[in-house]
């Protein structure tokens, strides 16, 4: 039953919650931010996460994976949204693992996935070339040479782009700049000659980078799947990313809402607990309604990846659009209901607010997914 967790899943979620709350709470993100940490996450912590199997939840056992399904991965990601834990979980565990799994050939899978599973390989998907999500707007060119390819172009908002070992670059080997035909996925070590990386410090204190590729040499075996045919596979990878990001935002929304409700029960104003004010009660109750609906959407979307891939695009857009709106609304209300202290950096609510805004842009804002949903439904 897809909308109720089974015993195994509940256990996984409980373990994840406990680990993250102890080892990577919001306070840890604050420390990374304040110390201007160069990596942007704690590599030793990531290795521990890998030991728990988080990098390999969706991988088949043959490649060292847990074979636990996307639904399992989603639960861990949701928990990481509660604690705003910075780690390669999304870029490597969701996007990277999915890309190799879906697009890689057997050799690539056998080589890369076991490394990825144990934390020895981190990845970053270099996709965006515009400040709004446009997955087919690719001008970065992959040109065939006698003994391989050369890569030229620029990418922006590459999550973990400055820290990942290898870059999964979406490049155009043929076709018009906005066509979904002619796209190719290539694997480029970040320290290759001709790769220039500028870390961008974003509102959420998490990792992103701008990348430049200047005559970068790419050997033929670095191509994932077939040349010029990455479009459809890429879309599947992105839909998985959208659903995972929705799961993260669900965790983020639940946690910031829980903190707000707790505050409503302890804060006094005008001689009464502010939680007794009916106007706030109704606003909080309306959020609870949306949270329940979004919970169902995320659970269904996660199991869609494993069970009904034909519904993947629709569910991905539904999940991302709904969770974008929920995360925006909850974090705004959280700040407002906390009043003055809500706008201080001392309170952690601000971290949720800022992460929500970045998450809202990752792999498509609300308008993008509303439009896509309508197109998929034929209107």
């Amino acid at each position: 039953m897809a909308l109720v967790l089974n015993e195994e899943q509940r256990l996984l979620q409980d373990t994840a919650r406990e680990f993250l709350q102890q080892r990577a709470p919001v306070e840890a993100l604050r420390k990374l931010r304040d110390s201007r940490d160069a990596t942007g996450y704690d590599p030793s912590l990531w290795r521990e996460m890998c030991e728990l199997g988080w990098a390999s939840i969706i991988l088949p056992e043959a490649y060292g994976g847990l074979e636990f399904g996307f639904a399992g991965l989603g639960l861990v990601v949701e928990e990481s949204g509660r604690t705003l834990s910075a780690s390669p979980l999304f870029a490597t565990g969701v996007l990277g693992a999915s890309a190799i799994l879906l697009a890689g050939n057997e050799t690539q899978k056998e080589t890369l996935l076991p490394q990825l599973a144990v934390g020895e390989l981190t990845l970053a998907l270099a996709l965006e070339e515009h400040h709004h999500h446009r997955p087919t707007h690719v001008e970065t060119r992959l040109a065939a040479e006698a003994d391989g390819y050369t890569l030229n172009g620029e990418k922006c908002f590459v999550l973990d782009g400055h820290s990942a070992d290898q870059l999964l670059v979406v490049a155009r080997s043929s076709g018009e700049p906005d066509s979904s035909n002619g796209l190719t996925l290539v694997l480029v070590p970040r320290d290759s000659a001709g790769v220039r990386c500028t870390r961008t410090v974003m509102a959420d204190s998490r990792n992103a980078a701008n990348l430049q590729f200047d005559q970068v040499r790419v050997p033929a075996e670095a191509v994932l799947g077939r040349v010029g045919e990455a479009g459809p596979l890429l879309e599947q990878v992105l839909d998985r990313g959208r659903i995972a990001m929705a799961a993260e935002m669900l965790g983020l929304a639940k946690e910031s809402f829980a903190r707000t409700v707790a505050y409503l029960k302890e804060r006094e104003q005008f001689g009464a607990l502010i939680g007794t004010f009916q106007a706030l009660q109704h606003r909080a109750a309306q959020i609870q309604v949306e949270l329940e609906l979004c919970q169902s959407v995320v659970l269904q979307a996660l199991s869609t990846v494993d069970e009904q891939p034909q519904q993947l695009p629709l569910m991905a857009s539904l999940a991302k659009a709904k969770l974008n709106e929920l995360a925006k609304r909850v974090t705004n209300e959280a700040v407002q209901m906390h009043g003055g202290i809500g706008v201080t950096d001392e309170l952690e609510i601000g971290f949720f607010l800022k992460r929500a805004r970045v998450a809202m842009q990752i792999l498509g804002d609300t308008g993008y997914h509303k439009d896509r949903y309508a197109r998929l439904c034929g209107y």
Partner: protein
Amino acid sequence: MEQLETFRTEVRQWLQDNCPESQRSPALPEEQYWGGRSGSFAGEDARLWFERMHARGWTAPEWPEAYGGGGLNPQQARVLKEEMKRINARTPLYSLGIWMLGPALLEYGNEEQKLRHLKAITGGEIRWCQGYSEPGSGSDLASLQTRAEDMGDHYLVNGSKIWTTNADKSDWIFCLVRTDPGAKKQEGISFLLIDMATEGVSVTPIELISGESEFCQTFFDNVRVPKENLVGELNKGWSIAKALLVHERKLMSEMGSESPRLQVPPTAAARDYLDFVDGKIADAQLRSDLVDYEMQMQAIGLTHFRCFEEKAAGVQSAAPLVMKYAGTEAEKIKSELLLAIMGTRGLGWEGESFSAAELDTLRLWAMSKAMTIAGGTSEVQLNVIAKNVLQLPQG
């Protein structure tokens, strides 16, 4: 399990043999059989279908056979329901008696009451209506004023009830009445059955903004009610009412899914009433509103499924508590959206210039306004969520 499959095969065959062809499609409101002294069948097939089902006790499949029910266990009842649904078999008897009063009598009534009333219900002889709300009571059910005074051998009832759906077509009414005026609000209320043919009972229909008047106000003027008509203990009617409310919720949500008056889905209306350019609705505002609505309905639909799965798995969550609010608010949005999509064609009140579907759209839009009021206003729903789910302090 095997037994159940045998039962399913039997039922399927029986339905195949006994359900007239004409009874295998959703019934329009005028085709429904509601029983009662003034009830009538829409045709010979409807009568036949009712009589055959009644003979098997399947107008109330789960009730004991002694009361005219089918004596089925819940699993069997479910199978019957599924098999009926499979061929779109109509409900043979629509009845508040079956849906609401019956469960209360089965739990709280004495043997005499059960024998007397339940059989008349399953046989469609007596049609019941409900008298809870009173003029001025609104969401505050406990504030009711209709009094039943103990006169020794009978109660003397005075007051009035509002929103008594189809009271003008009903034979009996089940009511909440105040039997101890000195007690605190919820206390001192009793559950009473009243024959509407008794002297002093009168009914006036209430016209709604939708132009319909299935709702009534029912007046009690020195009505003598035999003491045997008290259900459960004196002054303990509130707990019966609460139990019944659960049935009402369920009823409302089930009625929704097999609503006899089928509203055009907004996406279909969009195809009929809006221009498309490059496969997209040209009107950006309406397209955006439509996606918002469709996404919300998807989310609500998935949550319905989640509630179901959680119940089956014995998992408790807050999801069931948000459904009434989410569902009825979405219904209002849908109705507004349909009007907007249909433009001036959705604004016709009557006459041949408009199609039946168009006229229905407007009436259902007007009715949709009542959905966030009836059965616990949206405000009460939010209060309940704030209190029971969020456990916010009460002022």
